[in-house]
Protein backbone atom coordinates (compact mmCIF):
# COMPACT_ATOMS: atom_id res chain seq x y z
CA UNK A 1 0.00 0.00 0.00
CA UNK A 2 2.70 2.46 1.08
CA UNK A 3 6.26 1.91 0.00
CA UNK A 4 8.98 4.33 1.01
CA UNK A 5 12.54 3.77 -0.21
CA UNK A 6 15.57 5.74 0.90
CA UNK A 7 13.45 8.77 1.70
CA UNK A 8 15.64 11.71 2.63
CA UNK A 9 14.35 15.20 3.35
CA UNK A 10 16.76 18.05 3.90
CA UNK A 11 15.52 21.54 4.67
CA UNK A 12 17.39 24.73 3.78
CA UNK A 13 19.90 22.79 1.74
CA UNK A 14 23.18 24.57 1.12
CA UNK A 15 22.69 27.13 3.86
CA UNK A 16 24.18 27.26 7.35
CA UNK A 17 20.74 26.26 8.65
CA UNK A 18 20.72 23.01 6.68
CA UNK A 19 18.82 20.32 8.54
CA UNK A 20 18.29 16.73 7.52
CA UNK A 21 14.91 15.78 8.94
CA UNK A 22 14.70 12.33 7.39
CA UNK A 23 17.74 10.33 6.31
CA UNK A 24 17.14 7.25 4.24
CA UNK A 25 13.81 5.98 5.54
CA UNK A 26 12.75 2.58 4.22
CA UNK A 27 9.23 1.65 5.17
CA UNK A 28 6.64 -0.66 3.76
CA UNK A 29 3.09 -0.63 5.09
CA UNK A 30 0.61 -3.28 3.99
CA UNK A 31 -3.04 -2.56 3.27
CA UNK A 32 -5.09 -2.33 6.46
CA UNK A 33 -2.10 -1.90 8.75
CA UNK A 34 -2.35 0.75 11.49
CA UNK A 35 1.10 2.06 12.34
CA UNK A 36 1.75 4.28 15.32
CA UNK A 37 4.87 6.43 15.10
CA UNK A 38 6.77 7.67 18.15
CA UNK A 39 10.00 9.54 18.68
CA UNK A 40 11.37 12.59 20.42
CA UNK A 41 10.91 16.15 19.24
CA UNK A 42 12.72 16.66 15.97
CA UNK A 43 12.97 12.94 15.24
CA UNK A 44 11.17 13.45 11.93
CA UNK A 45 7.72 12.05 12.76
CA UNK A 46 5.71 14.96 11.39
CA UNK A 47 8.12 15.42 8.51
CA UNK A 48 7.48 11.83 7.49
CA UNK A 49 3.72 12.41 7.45
CA UNK A 50 4.09 15.71 5.60
CA UNK A 51 6.33 14.04 3.02
CA UNK A 52 3.72 11.33 2.52
CA UNK A 53 1.00 13.98 2.19
CA UNK A 54 3.06 15.94 -0.32
CA UNK A 55 3.81 19.20 1.49
CA UNK A 56 7.30 19.08 -0.02
CA UNK A 57 9.03 16.76 -2.50
CA UNK A 58 11.62 14.28 -1.19
CA UNK A 59 15.22 15.49 -1.42
CA UNK A 60 15.95 11.96 -2.57
CA UNK A 61 14.23 8.61 -2.42
CA UNK A 62 10.89 7.27 -3.52
CA UNK A 63 7.35 7.37 -2.18
CA UNK A 64 4.84 4.93 -3.60
CA UNK A 65 1.18 4.78 -2.68
CA UNK A 66 -1.01 2.14 -4.30
CA UNK A 67 1.99 1.15 -6.41
CA UNK A 68 2.18 4.64 -7.88
CA UNK A 69 5.14 6.96 -7.55
CA UNK A 70 3.64 10.05 -5.92
CA UNK A 71 6.88 11.77 -4.85
CA UNK A 72 6.43 14.73 -7.20
CA UNK A 73 2.68 15.09 -6.85
CA UNK A 74 1.29 18.17 -5.10
CA UNK A 75 -0.65 17.87 -1.85
CA UNK A 76 -3.88 18.57 -3.68
CA UNK A 77 -3.29 15.86 -6.31
CA UNK A 78 -2.22 13.35 -3.72
CA UNK A 79 -5.25 13.99 -1.55
CA UNK A 80 -7.25 11.63 -3.76
CA UNK A 81 -5.28 8.84 -2.08
CA UNK A 82 -4.26 10.47 1.18
CA UNK A 83 -6.60 11.74 3.90
CA UNK A 84 -5.20 13.66 6.81
CA UNK A 85 -6.02 15.01 10.27
CA UNK A 86 -3.79 17.74 11.68
CA UNK A 87 -2.70 18.31 15.26
CA UNK A 88 -4.25 21.77 15.38
CA UNK A 89 -8.06 21.44 15.46
CA UNK A 90 -8.29 24.82 13.70
CA UNK A 91 -6.15 23.64 10.79
CA UNK A 92 -8.36 20.82 9.61
CA UNK A 93 -11.53 22.75 8.92
CA UNK A 94 -12.74 26.24 8.00
CA UNK A 95 -14.12 28.13 10.98
CA UNK A 96 -15.84 30.62 8.70
CA UNK A 97 -17.82 27.90 6.92
CA UNK A 98 -20.66 25.85 8.34
CA UNK A 99 -20.33 22.25 9.47
CA UNK A 100 -22.14 20.98 6.39
CA UNK A 101 -20.04 23.15 4.08
CA UNK A 102 -16.87 21.72 5.59
CA UNK A 103 -18.23 18.23 5.15
CA UNK A 104 -19.21 18.99 1.54
CA UNK A 105 -15.64 20.10 0.86
CA UNK A 106 -14.38 16.81 2.22
CA UNK A 107 -16.98 14.77 0.36
CA UNK A 108 -15.64 16.09 -2.96
CA UNK A 109 -12.00 15.27 -2.14
CA UNK A 110 -10.36 13.41 -4.99
CA UNK A 111 -13.06 14.39 -7.49
CA UNK A 112 -13.33 17.18 -10.00
CA UNK A 113 -15.22 20.03 -8.38
CA UNK A 114 -17.90 21.08 -10.80
CA UNK A 115 -20.90 23.35 -10.71
CA UNK A 116 -23.37 21.13 -8.94
CA UNK A 117 -24.83 22.44 -5.68
CA UNK A 118 -22.40 21.57 -2.90
CA UNK A 119 -25.10 20.95 -0.29
CA UNK A 120 -27.27 18.52 -2.19
CA UNK A 121 -29.86 16.48 -0.27
CA UNK A 122 -28.10 13.12 -0.80
CA UNK A 123 -24.95 14.53 0.77
CA UNK A 124 -26.84 16.11 3.64
CA UNK A 125 -28.39 12.75 4.49
CA UNK A 126 -24.91 11.19 4.63
CA UNK A 127 -23.67 14.02 6.83
CA UNK A 128 -26.52 13.57 9.30
CA UNK A 129 -25.83 9.82 9.52
CA UNK A 130 -22.11 10.24 10.00
CA UNK A 131 -22.48 12.99 12.60
CA UNK A 132 -25.20 11.12 14.48
CA UNK A 133 -22.79 8.18 14.77
CA UNK A 134 -20.44 10.44 16.76
CA UNK A 135 -23.04 10.81 19.50
CA UNK A 136 -22.12 14.44 20.08
CA UNK A 137 -25.44 15.88 18.96
CA UNK A 138 -23.79 17.65 16.03
CA UNK A 139 -26.24 16.22 13.50
CA UNK A 140 -28.71 18.93 14.51
CA UNK A 141 -26.19 21.72 13.98
CA UNK A 142 -25.32 21.25 10.32
CA UNK A 143 -25.71 24.94 9.50
CA UNK A 144 -23.72 26.19 12.49
CA UNK A 145 -20.40 27.76 11.73
CA UNK A 146 -17.43 25.52 12.51
CA UNK A 147 -15.89 28.28 14.65
CA UNK A 148 -18.63 27.75 17.24
CA UNK A 149 -17.42 24.23 18.05
CA UNK A 150 -14.87 23.15 20.66
CA UNK A 151 -11.47 21.80 19.64
CA UNK A 152 -12.57 18.26 20.40
CA UNK A 153 -15.76 18.57 18.36
CA UNK A 154 -13.78 20.01 15.47
CA UNK A 155 -11.26 17.19 15.65
CA UNK A 156 -14.04 14.60 15.68
CA UNK A 157 -15.50 16.24 12.57
CA UNK A 158 -12.04 16.39 11.01
CA UNK A 159 -11.89 12.61 11.41
CA UNK A 160 -15.29 12.27 9.75
CA UNK A 161 -14.09 14.57 6.96
CA UNK A 162 -11.01 12.42 6.43
CA UNK A 163 -13.17 9.38 5.84
CA UNK A 164 -16.09 10.85 3.85
CA UNK A 165 -14.38 10.33 0.50
CA UNK A 166 -12.51 7.10 -0.18
CA UNK A 167 -8.74 7.14 0.27
CA UNK A 168 -5.90 4.65 0.42
CA UNK A 169 -4.08 6.11 3.37
CA UNK A 170 -5.09 7.96 6.54
CA UNK A 171 -2.46 10.19 8.17
CA UNK A 172 -3.00 11.33 11.77
CA UNK A 173 -0.51 13.88 13.07
CA UNK A 174 -0.78 13.94 16.88
CA UNK A 175 -4.46 14.55 16.33
CA UNK A 176 -5.38 14.16 20.01
CA UNK A 177 -2.46 16.15 21.46
CA UNK A 178 -4.22 19.51 21.59
CA UNK A 179 -7.36 18.20 23.28
CA UNK A 180 -8.39 17.94 26.92
CA UNK A 181 -7.98 14.40 28.37
CA UNK A 182 -11.65 13.44 28.09
CA UNK A 183 -11.98 14.58 24.50
CA UNK A 184 -8.59 13.08 23.59
CA UNK A 185 -9.89 9.73 24.83
CA UNK A 186 -13.07 10.17 22.80
CA UNK A 187 -11.20 11.01 19.60
CA UNK A 188 -8.75 8.15 20.14
CA UNK A 189 -11.65 5.76 20.56
CA UNK A 190 -13.36 7.20 17.50
CA UNK A 191 -10.11 6.72 15.58
CA UNK A 192 -9.97 3.04 16.56
CA UNK A 193 -13.58 2.45 15.53
CA UNK A 194 -13.28 4.34 12.25
CA UNK A 195 -10.06 2.65 11.18
CA UNK A 196 -11.43 -0.80 12.04
CA UNK A 197 -14.77 -0.20 10.36
CA UNK A 198 -13.24 1.06 7.13
CA UNK A 199 -10.12 -1.11 7.22
CA UNK A 200 -7.99 1.98 6.56
CA UNK A 201 -4.24 1.88 6.13
CA UNK A 202 -3.24 4.34 8.82
CA UNK A 203 -0.13 6.13 10.04
CA UNK A 204 -0.52 7.91 13.36
CA UNK A 205 2.10 10.12 14.98
CA UNK A 206 1.73 10.33 18.73
CA UNK A 207 3.62 11.70 21.70
CA UNK A 208 2.02 9.24 24.07
CA UNK A 209 3.71 5.84 24.43
CA UNK A 210 0.49 4.46 25.89
CA UNK A 211 -1.52 5.55 22.87
CA UNK A 212 1.16 4.19 20.55
CA UNK A 213 0.66 0.72 22.02
CA UNK A 214 -3.08 0.89 22.57
CA UNK A 215 -3.94 1.96 19.06
CA UNK A 216 -2.78 0.24 15.94
CA UNK A 217 -1.15 -3.00 14.89
CA UNK A 218 2.44 -1.91 14.55
CA UNK A 219 4.69 0.67 16.16
CA UNK A 220 7.79 2.34 14.79
CA UNK A 221 10.17 4.66 16.56
CA UNK A 222 12.06 7.40 14.78
CA UNK A 223 15.29 8.92 16.00
CA UNK A 224 17.23 11.60 14.15
CA UNK A 225 15.46 10.87 10.91
CA UNK A 226 15.88 7.10 10.99
CA UNK A 227 13.66 4.22 11.96
CA UNK A 228 15.25 2.67 15.05
CA UNK A 229 12.46 0.36 16.15
CA UNK A 230 9.77 -1.46 14.22
CA UNK A 231 7.58 -3.90 16.13
CA UNK A 232 4.34 -5.62 15.34
CA UNK A 233 2.47 -8.85 15.98
CA UNK A 234 3.21 -10.94 19.07
CA UNK A 235 6.33 -9.03 20.00
CA UNK A 236 4.33 -5.82 20.17
CA UNK A 237 1.44 -7.31 22.10
CA UNK A 238 3.76 -8.21 25.00
CA UNK A 239 5.38 -4.80 25.00
CA UNK A 240 4.60 -2.47 27.92
CA UNK A 241 4.89 1.29 28.09
CA UNK A 242 7.89 0.83 30.37
CA UNK A 243 9.62 -1.38 27.78
CA UNK A 244 9.04 1.22 25.15
CA UNK A 245 10.35 4.01 27.34
CA UNK A 246 13.46 1.92 28.10
CA UNK A 247 14.10 1.37 24.40
CA UNK A 248 13.51 5.01 23.78
CA UNK A 249 16.00 5.96 26.49
CA UNK A 250 18.58 3.58 25.11
CA UNK A 251 18.24 5.12 21.70
CA UNK A 252 18.78 8.58 22.96
CA UNK A 253 21.60 7.50 25.26
CA UNK A 254 20.52 10.12 27.75
CA UNK A 255 18.05 10.42 30.55
CA UNK A 256 14.56 11.25 29.53
CA UNK A 257 13.92 14.90 29.80
CA UNK A 258 10.56 14.60 28.15
CA UNK A 259 8.14 13.93 31.03
CA UNK A 260 5.26 13.82 28.62
CA UNK A 261 6.42 10.44 27.37
CA UNK A 262 6.09 8.83 30.79
CA UNK A 263 2.94 10.57 31.82
CA UNK A 264 1.16 10.03 28.54
Amino acid at each position, binding site marked *: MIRVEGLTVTFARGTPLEKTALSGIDLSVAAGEFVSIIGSNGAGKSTLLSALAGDFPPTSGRIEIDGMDVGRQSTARRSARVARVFQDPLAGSCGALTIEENLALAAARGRTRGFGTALRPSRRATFVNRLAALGLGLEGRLSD*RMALLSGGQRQAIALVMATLAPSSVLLLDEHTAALDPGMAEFVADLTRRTVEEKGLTTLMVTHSMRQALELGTRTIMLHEGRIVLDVGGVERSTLTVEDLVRMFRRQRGVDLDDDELLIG
Partner: protein
Amino acid sequence: MSAIAFFGAVELGLVYAFVGLGVYLSFRILDFPDLTVDGSFPLGAAVSAVAIVGGVDPWLATLAAILAGACAGLVTAVLNVRFGILHLLASILTMIALFSINLRIMGRPNVPLLNQETIITPFYDLGMASYLVRPLFLAVLVALVVIALAWFLATDFGLAMRATGANQRMARAQGIPTALYIYVGMALSNGLAALAGSLFAQTNGFADVTSGVGTIVVGLAAVIVGETLFRSRHLWVLLIGVVAGSILYRIAIQLALSFDAIGLEPSDLNLATAVLVALALILPRLGKSGARA
Protein backbone atom coordinates in the same frame (compact mmCIF):
# COMPACT_ATOMS: atom_id res chain seq x y z
CA MET B 1 -32.17 66.51 -2.78
CA SER B 2 -34.11 66.52 -6.02
CA ALA B 3 -35.56 63.36 -7.58
CA ILE B 4 -33.02 63.57 -10.38
CA ALA B 5 -30.16 63.86 -7.90
CA PHE B 6 -31.60 60.95 -5.92
CA PHE B 7 -31.92 58.66 -8.93
CA GLY B 8 -28.50 59.80 -10.07
CA ALA B 9 -27.08 58.61 -6.75
CA VAL B 10 -28.95 55.29 -7.08
CA GLU B 11 -27.60 54.89 -10.60
CA LEU B 12 -24.03 55.49 -9.51
CA GLY B 13 -24.54 53.15 -6.57
CA LEU B 14 -25.72 50.43 -8.93
CA VAL B 15 -22.71 50.92 -11.21
CA TYR B 16 -20.35 50.63 -8.28
CA ALA B 17 -22.29 47.67 -6.90
CA PHE B 18 -20.38 45.57 -9.46
CA VAL B 19 -17.13 46.86 -7.95
CA GLY B 20 -18.50 46.05 -4.49
CA LEU B 21 -19.31 42.49 -5.54
CA GLY B 22 -15.85 42.14 -7.08
CA VAL B 23 -14.19 43.49 -3.95
CA TYR B 24 -16.33 41.12 -1.88
CA LEU B 25 -14.86 38.24 -3.90
CA SER B 26 -11.26 39.34 -3.46
CA PHE B 27 -11.32 40.77 0.08
CA ARG B 28 -13.86 38.56 1.77
CA ILE B 29 -14.01 35.29 -0.17
CA LEU B 30 -10.34 34.99 -1.15
CA ASP B 31 -8.89 37.15 1.65
CA PHE B 32 -6.81 38.85 -1.03
CA PRO B 33 -6.54 42.65 -0.51
CA ASP B 34 -6.56 43.75 -4.13
CA LEU B 35 -6.05 47.29 -5.39
CA THR B 36 -6.03 46.22 -9.03
CA VAL B 37 -9.63 47.44 -9.33
CA ASP B 38 -8.36 51.06 -9.40
CA GLY B 39 -6.86 50.09 -12.75
CA SER B 40 -9.36 47.56 -14.03
CA PHE B 41 -12.31 49.94 -13.59
CA PRO B 42 -10.92 52.53 -16.05
CA LEU B 43 -9.59 49.64 -18.15
CA GLY B 44 -13.16 48.43 -18.62
CA ALA B 45 -14.23 51.97 -19.46
CA ALA B 46 -11.36 52.44 -21.93
CA VAL B 47 -11.80 49.12 -23.74
CA SER B 48 -15.53 49.46 -24.21
CA ALA B 49 -15.39 53.17 -25.15
CA VAL B 50 -12.72 52.64 -27.79
CA ALA B 51 -14.53 49.57 -29.12
CA ILE B 52 -17.88 51.38 -29.29
CA VAL B 53 -16.35 54.41 -31.02
CA GLY B 54 -14.71 51.94 -33.40
CA GLY B 55 -18.13 50.58 -34.35
CA VAL B 56 -18.15 47.37 -32.32
CA ASP B 57 -21.50 46.14 -31.02
CA PRO B 58 -21.87 47.65 -27.51
CA TRP B 59 -22.65 44.28 -25.91
CA LEU B 60 -19.51 42.79 -27.46
CA ALA B 61 -17.59 45.87 -26.34
CA THR B 62 -18.85 45.28 -22.78
CA LEU B 63 -17.81 41.64 -22.94
CA ALA B 64 -14.36 42.68 -24.16
CA ALA B 65 -14.12 45.04 -21.17
CA ILE B 66 -14.94 42.20 -18.77
CA LEU B 67 -12.32 39.95 -20.37
CA ALA B 68 -9.70 42.71 -20.20
CA GLY B 69 -10.45 43.20 -16.50
CA ALA B 70 -10.21 39.47 -15.90
CA CYS B 71 -6.76 39.45 -17.51
CA ALA B 72 -5.66 42.30 -15.22
CA GLY B 73 -6.84 40.34 -12.19
CA LEU B 74 -5.00 37.29 -13.48
CA VAL B 75 -1.75 39.27 -13.76
CA THR B 76 -2.00 40.33 -10.11
CA ALA B 77 -2.83 36.76 -9.03
CA VAL B 78 0.10 35.30 -10.96
CA LEU B 79 2.50 37.90 -9.50
CA ASN B 80 1.33 36.87 -6.04
CA VAL B 81 0.83 33.10 -6.34
CA ARG B 82 3.49 32.17 -8.86
CA PHE B 83 6.18 34.67 -7.94
CA GLY B 84 5.44 35.24 -4.26
CA ILE B 85 5.03 39.02 -4.41
CA LEU B 86 2.96 40.32 -1.49
CA HIS B 87 -0.67 40.63 -2.63
CA LEU B 88 -1.01 44.35 -1.91
CA LEU B 89 2.22 45.14 -3.75
CA ALA B 90 1.37 42.82 -6.65
CA SER B 91 -1.95 44.62 -7.10
CA ILE B 92 -0.34 48.06 -6.89
CA LEU B 93 2.12 47.05 -9.61
CA THR B 94 -0.71 45.95 -11.91
CA MET B 95 -2.70 49.08 -11.08
CA ILE B 96 0.21 51.39 -11.94
CA ALA B 97 0.90 49.49 -15.15
CA LEU B 98 -2.77 49.76 -16.12
CA PHE B 99 -2.62 53.56 -15.99
CA SER B 100 -0.18 53.52 -18.92
CA ILE B 101 -2.06 50.71 -20.65
CA ASN B 102 -5.35 52.59 -20.40
CA LEU B 103 -3.74 55.68 -21.95
CA ARG B 104 -2.36 53.49 -24.74
CA ILE B 105 -5.78 51.93 -25.36
CA MET B 106 -7.53 55.28 -25.56
CA GLY B 107 -4.67 57.17 -27.18
CA ARG B 108 -5.63 60.18 -25.05
CA PRO B 109 -6.84 60.73 -21.47
CA ASN B 110 -10.54 60.99 -22.35
CA VAL B 111 -12.83 59.38 -24.95
CA PRO B 112 -16.33 60.87 -25.27
CA LEU B 113 -19.21 58.51 -26.06
CA LEU B 114 -21.85 61.15 -26.80
CA ASN B 115 -24.29 60.16 -29.54
CA GLN B 116 -22.84 56.67 -29.68
CA GLU B 117 -24.92 53.51 -29.57
CA THR B 118 -24.46 51.94 -26.10
CA ILE B 119 -26.16 48.95 -24.48
CA ILE B 120 -28.63 51.35 -22.83
CA THR B 121 -29.54 53.41 -25.91
CA PRO B 122 -32.39 51.10 -27.08
CA PHE B 123 -34.11 51.42 -23.70
CA TYR B 124 -34.32 55.21 -23.91
CA ASP B 125 -36.98 54.73 -26.59
CA LEU B 126 -39.35 53.05 -24.14
CA GLY B 127 -40.79 56.41 -23.22
CA MET B 128 -39.56 56.59 -19.65
CA ALA B 129 -37.50 59.46 -18.30
CA SER B 130 -33.84 58.73 -18.97
CA TYR B 131 -32.92 59.33 -15.31
CA LEU B 132 -35.21 56.36 -14.50
CA VAL B 133 -34.21 54.14 -17.42
CA ARG B 134 -30.57 53.97 -16.41
CA PRO B 135 -31.05 52.83 -12.78
CA LEU B 136 -33.75 50.34 -13.85
CA PHE B 137 -31.52 48.85 -16.53
CA LEU B 138 -28.58 48.65 -14.10
CA ALA B 139 -30.78 47.13 -11.38
CA VAL B 140 -31.71 44.28 -13.70
CA LEU B 141 -28.05 43.66 -14.55
CA VAL B 142 -27.02 43.78 -10.89
CA ALA B 143 -29.80 41.34 -9.97
CA LEU B 144 -28.60 38.89 -12.63
CA VAL B 145 -25.01 39.11 -11.39
CA VAL B 146 -26.07 38.65 -7.74
CA ILE B 147 -28.09 35.56 -8.64
CA ALA B 148 -25.21 34.16 -10.68
CA LEU B 149 -22.69 34.80 -7.87
CA ALA B 150 -24.95 33.31 -5.18
CA TRP B 151 -25.38 30.20 -7.32
CA PHE B 152 -21.67 30.03 -8.13
CA LEU B 153 -20.52 30.30 -4.52
CA ALA B 154 -22.88 27.48 -3.49
CA THR B 155 -21.47 25.01 -6.02
CA ASP B 156 -18.63 22.59 -5.30
CA PHE B 157 -16.34 24.89 -7.26
CA GLY B 158 -17.46 28.02 -5.42
CA LEU B 159 -17.25 26.33 -2.04
CA ALA B 160 -13.68 25.29 -2.83
CA MET B 161 -12.91 28.94 -3.60
CA ARG B 162 -14.31 29.99 -0.22
CA ALA B 163 -12.20 27.32 1.49
CA THR B 164 -9.13 28.61 -0.37
CA GLY B 165 -9.64 32.04 1.17
CA ALA B 166 -10.53 30.74 4.62
CA ASN B 167 -7.89 28.05 5.17
CA GLN B 168 -5.41 27.25 2.42
CA ARG B 169 -3.73 24.40 4.25
CA MET B 170 -7.03 22.64 4.85
CA ALA B 171 -8.10 23.35 1.28
CA ARG B 172 -5.03 21.64 -0.13
CA ALA B 173 -5.45 18.67 2.18
CA GLN B 174 -8.97 18.33 0.80
CA GLY B 175 -7.59 18.20 -2.72
CA ILE B 176 -8.20 21.82 -3.71
CA PRO B 177 -5.50 23.25 -6.01
CA THR B 178 -5.60 26.64 -4.30
CA ALA B 179 -3.62 28.49 -6.99
CA LEU B 180 -6.29 27.73 -9.60
CA TYR B 181 -9.02 29.10 -7.38
CA ILE B 182 -7.12 32.29 -6.65
CA TYR B 183 -6.61 32.81 -10.40
CA VAL B 184 -10.28 32.27 -11.17
CA GLY B 185 -11.47 34.38 -8.23
CA MET B 186 -9.20 37.30 -9.04
CA ALA B 187 -10.18 37.18 -12.71
CA LEU B 188 -13.86 37.23 -11.73
CA SER B 189 -13.34 40.06 -9.25
CA ASN B 190 -11.58 42.31 -11.73
CA GLY B 191 -13.92 41.30 -14.52
CA LEU B 192 -16.72 42.71 -12.39
CA ALA B 193 -14.74 45.91 -11.73
CA ALA B 194 -14.15 46.29 -15.47
CA LEU B 195 -17.85 45.70 -16.12
CA ALA B 196 -18.56 48.55 -13.70
CA GLY B 197 -16.09 50.75 -15.58
CA SER B 198 -17.70 49.87 -18.88
CA LEU B 199 -21.19 50.66 -17.56
CA PHE B 200 -19.89 53.89 -16.04
CA ALA B 201 -18.56 54.97 -19.41
CA GLN B 202 -21.76 54.02 -21.22
CA THR B 203 -24.14 55.68 -18.74
CA ASN B 204 -22.06 58.83 -18.33
CA GLY B 205 -21.02 59.15 -21.94
CA PHE B 206 -17.26 59.18 -21.56
CA ALA B 207 -14.24 57.13 -20.50
CA ASP B 208 -11.57 58.89 -18.49
CA VAL B 209 -8.18 57.57 -17.47
CA THR B 210 -8.43 59.12 -14.01
CA SER B 211 -11.88 57.69 -13.24
CA GLY B 212 -10.31 54.75 -11.38
CA VAL B 213 -8.85 56.72 -8.48
CA GLY B 214 -10.37 55.48 -5.23
CA THR B 215 -12.40 52.69 -6.84
CA ILE B 216 -11.16 50.24 -4.23
CA VAL B 217 -12.32 52.46 -1.36
CA VAL B 218 -15.77 52.85 -2.90
CA GLY B 219 -15.95 49.07 -3.36
CA LEU B 220 -14.85 48.52 0.22
CA ALA B 221 -17.39 51.06 1.41
CA ALA B 222 -20.13 49.05 -0.28
CA VAL B 223 -18.92 45.82 1.32
CA ILE B 224 -18.53 47.29 4.79
CA VAL B 225 -21.77 49.30 4.82
CA GLY B 226 -23.54 46.20 3.49
CA GLU B 227 -22.04 43.91 6.12
CA THR B 228 -22.87 46.34 8.89
CA LEU B 229 -26.50 46.56 7.87
CA PHE B 230 -27.09 43.00 6.63
CA ARG B 231 -25.80 40.53 9.20
CA SER B 232 -26.54 37.04 8.00
CA ARG B 233 -25.13 33.56 7.59
CA HIS B 234 -26.60 33.36 4.14
CA LEU B 235 -24.30 34.35 1.36
CA TRP B 236 -27.02 35.66 -0.92
CA VAL B 237 -28.18 38.06 1.80
CA LEU B 238 -24.62 39.32 2.13
CA LEU B 239 -24.38 39.82 -1.63
CA ILE B 240 -27.62 41.82 -1.64
CA GLY B 241 -26.14 43.72 1.31
CA VAL B 242 -23.16 44.73 -0.82
CA VAL B 243 -25.49 46.11 -3.50
CA ALA B 244 -27.60 47.93 -0.89
CA GLY B 245 -24.40 49.19 0.75
CA SER B 246 -23.20 50.62 -2.52
CA ILE B 247 -26.49 52.46 -3.14
CA LEU B 248 -26.82 53.72 0.44
CA TYR B 249 -23.26 54.94 0.38
CA ARG B 250 -23.97 57.01 -2.74
CA ILE B 251 -27.15 58.43 -1.27
CA ALA B 252 -25.30 59.36 1.93
CA ILE B 253 -22.60 61.09 -0.08
CA GLN B 254 -25.20 62.86 -2.21
CA LEU B 255 -26.99 64.04 0.94
CA ALA B 256 -23.76 65.29 2.48
CA LEU B 257 -22.90 67.20 -0.68
CA SER B 258 -26.38 68.68 -1.01
CA PHE B 259 -26.37 70.26 2.43
CA ASP B 260 -24.97 73.66 1.81
CA ALA B 261 -24.68 74.16 5.56
CA ILE B 262 -21.82 71.61 5.76
CA GLY B 263 -20.04 73.44 3.00
CA LEU B 264 -18.83 70.32 1.19
CA GLU B 265 -17.86 70.53 -2.46
CA PRO B 266 -17.77 67.71 -5.01
CA SER B 267 -14.00 67.68 -4.73
CA ASP B 268 -14.40 66.63 -1.09
CA LEU B 269 -15.83 63.29 -2.24
CA ASN B 270 -12.76 61.22 -1.46
CA LEU B 271 -12.40 62.73 1.99
CA ALA B 272 -16.09 62.04 2.72
CA THR B 273 -15.66 58.46 1.49
CA ALA B 274 -12.62 57.83 3.65
CA VAL B 275 -14.40 59.24 6.72
CA LEU B 276 -17.50 57.16 6.02
CA VAL B 277 -15.53 53.91 5.62
CA ALA B 278 -13.47 54.64 8.72
CA LEU B 279 -16.68 55.31 10.69
CA ALA B 280 -18.28 52.10 9.43
CA LEU B 281 -15.20 50.23 10.62
CA ILE B 282 -14.96 51.98 13.99
CA LEU B 283 -18.61 52.16 15.07
CA PRO B 284 -19.23 48.39 15.43
CA ARG B 285 -16.11 48.19 17.62
CA LEU B 286 -17.36 50.89 19.96
CA GLY B 287 -20.56 48.94 20.57
CA LYS B 288 -18.88 45.64 21.26
CA SER B 289 -15.26 45.11 22.12
CA GLY B 290 -13.66 42.34 20.12
CA ALA B 291 -15.64 42.98 16.97
CA ARG B 292 -13.88 42.23 13.74
CA ALA B 293 -12.78 44.63 11.07
